[in-house]
């Protein structure tokens, strides 16, 4: 057993590091401080990654990705985070992409995958509805087949970046028969289609990333159905189990914690505080445990096994840690973390803390709330 990276992996890390250092966006509005970034910066960054062939960095070569190994993907993400660059919008790259590779027709693959990998097409995900949060399978947005079209009516909510997206993939109800899961289908829609309306939701971090999306008699060609009618739930489950390791967020948490500890080390009020030092040590130890649990999962995947039981806790622990770090950033920031909605002079990590702290309350809610994750895991562990 050894935890050392191979010489080839170290060479790869150096290549990514050099490229990231030269190309990561230098955004005065504060990527480096962890603040939310604008559409132009995000899109330009994704274009730059695409031109290097690294936007779809989790994809195999046969579908236009670089064909990285699981360990290389992890190194890539770690180096991206280390350089302070934003992560990619995940919906098309991490979710829809793998779904199309497994369930899509060759035509669908040819039509969408190259546009996604080239940053031409940005996607959002239409899952949650006002009455269907954790109980996702109760969703009501309806798609009724009429000839070679579906007519879609209903509403989605909490749709991240719908106001940026060119396309949306949706879970819709195509049948009321059988179990609630059986009547769900997976449908792709152009956001420019008549009858789709996007309304913003501003969250407690003061920013607009979420939306409501309304569908009124939206006409969708049947060739935009992925898989067969009624297969939507199976596809959704496949999608949710994909990329379990990226969800731990090890790289970004490392970056944030390093910023904090570097800042505390020069903060005249905190640098000699045993309390502050011990709290940082606690977070560092927790992060180390997460990092090596993630590596155990990667090692299994690299050997062709499915992720083991150790991977189930990655989302729960990873998001708790993101919140724990942001909480320490806010509390160590003290009065310097109080300015709101306007950037003022001061330590960057403290300036960004109130926004980050508020935003990150979402991470234990999205992607299946941590309580739902525990329900799922309990079924496996207790078996009742």
């Amino acid at each position, binding site marked *: 057993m050894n935890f050392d990276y191979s010489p080839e992996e170290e060479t790869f890390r150096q290549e990514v590091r050099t490229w990231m250092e030269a190309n990561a966006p230098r955004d005065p509005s504060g990527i480096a401080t962890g603040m939310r970034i604008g559409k132009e910066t995000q899109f330009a960054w994704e274009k730059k990654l695409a031109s290097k062939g690294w936007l779809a960095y989790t994809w195999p070569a046969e579908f236009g990705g670089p064909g990285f190994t699981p360990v290389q993907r992890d190194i890539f993400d770690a180096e991206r985070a280390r350089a302070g660059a934003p992560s990619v919008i995940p919906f098309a790259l991490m979710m829809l992409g793998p779904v199309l590779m497994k369930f899509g027709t060759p035509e669908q693959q040819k039509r969408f995958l190259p546009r996604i990998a080239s940053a031409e097409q940005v996607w959002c995900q239409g899952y949650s509805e006002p009455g269907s949060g954790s109980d996702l399978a109760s969703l009501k947005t309806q798609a009724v087949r009429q000839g070679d079209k579906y007519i879609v009516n209903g509403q989605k909510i909490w749709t991240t970046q719908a106001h940026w997206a060119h396309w949306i993939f949706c879970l819709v109800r195509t049948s009321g028969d059988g179990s609630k899961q059986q009547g769900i289908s997976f449908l792709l829609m152009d956001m420019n289609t008549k009858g789709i309306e996007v309304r913003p939701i501003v969250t407690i971090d003061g920013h607009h990333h979420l939306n409501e999306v309304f569908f009124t008699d939206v006409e969708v060609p049947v060739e935009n159905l992925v898989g067969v009618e009624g297969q939507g739930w199976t596809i959704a489950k496949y999608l949710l189990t994909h990329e379990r390791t990226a969800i731990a967020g090890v790289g970004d948490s490392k970056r944030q914690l390093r910023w904090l500890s570097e800042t505390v080390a020069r903060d005249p009020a905190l640098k000699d505080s045993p309390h502050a030092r011990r709290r940082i040590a606690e977070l560092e130890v927790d992060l180390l445990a997460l990092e090596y*649990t993630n590596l155990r999962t990667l090692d299994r995947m690299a050997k062709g096994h499915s992720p083991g039981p150790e991977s189930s806790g990655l989302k729960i622990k990873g998001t708790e840690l993101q919140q724990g770090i942001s909480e320490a950033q806010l509390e160590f920031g003290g009065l310097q973390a109080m300015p709101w909605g306007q950037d003022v002079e001061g330590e960057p990590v403290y300036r960004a803390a109130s926004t980050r702290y508020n935003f990150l309350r979402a991470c234990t809610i999205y992607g299946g709330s941590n309580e739902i994750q*525990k329900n799922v895991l309990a079924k496996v*562990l207790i078996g009742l």
Partner: protein
Amino acid sequence: MDLSFTSEQEILQDSAVKFAQKGYSFDQYKKSLKAPGQCDPAIWKQVAEFGWLALAVPESAGGIGGSTLDIALVAEALGAGLVIEPFIAGAIFPAAIIAASESAGRQDALLGNLASGDAQLAVAYSERAGRFDPAQCTTIADKNAKGFVLSGEKICAFNAPNASHLIVSARNGSAVDLFLVPRETAGLSLTAYPVLGGGVAADVKLDGVQVDSDARLGDITALEAGLDKAIAVDCALALGGMKALFERTSAYLRTRKQFGVAIGTFQVLQHRVVDMFIELEQSRSLVLLATAKADSGDAVERRRAVSAAKAYVAKASKMVAQQAVQLHGGIGMTEELDVGHYFRQLTAFGTRFGDRDYHLDRFQAVAAA
């Protein structure tokens, strides 16, 4: 990166698991508790025959010279089996110190006896005012014509009542050095007692104890290296106990009925079990890291990984142990069920060789240096 075990390690793990499950038992545990020094000679003989004691002894001294991971695989199984015989305190820890010391090579006979199970050792390094820090040492080693005269007091020297020799730390000028002291040396007196979670220890008085100059094993770096190895192995032992408690608790939730249903159908209890499982897996990751780094020649890397593991597992094992008792309810409080005995073992684990706060500070100090 390759996190798989070698086939030899798998065989080792397999035999240790089988021994703990079949050769040992809750009944044997209770029998061992009543044995002299809480160590059943028949069990100790078996442990030696398996070669597990020889794992800590270098090949040059007639041992097997296993890696810390090899030893940890055995320890995890022993921890899961509630084995209280002094595997770490009486063998792994002192052997690791001797192997890391300048005297390695001069103590082959003693190490041979240790590997064969004919002798046990103990380390007396803790002092009342020094808490967990081995460098806080007020016991004095005065050099004289015959060697050294040792004077001072040690507390809680694990396994000392069973040991043929003690490794004693003492201040020699400005350095802290280690001395091998035969148990029967004049001036050495022990106040022996059983300890929480099984096993025995002693407070040690050294009243002008004369030892030869050959008795000096080396300096504190050997103690630190041995201690780090012992801590990594001890974390694996605790991991075994945590795993056993997780398995017993999830099984209990499947079978125990209240309100007409298995209590495992209650969400609040389900989530508790999930939390126990997650802590177990996070702990396992750091135990693997610590065992891998315990053999590193880079002392900074070694200390950092070992202290991270101990800091994490101390907290996680406390959570798992407390929740195992809580979820078992009244029966978890009784001597009759093994759960409470694992609870005591894990409680003792949290403190011996340094608690969470001590290791967080040590981790932080290493990281900052």
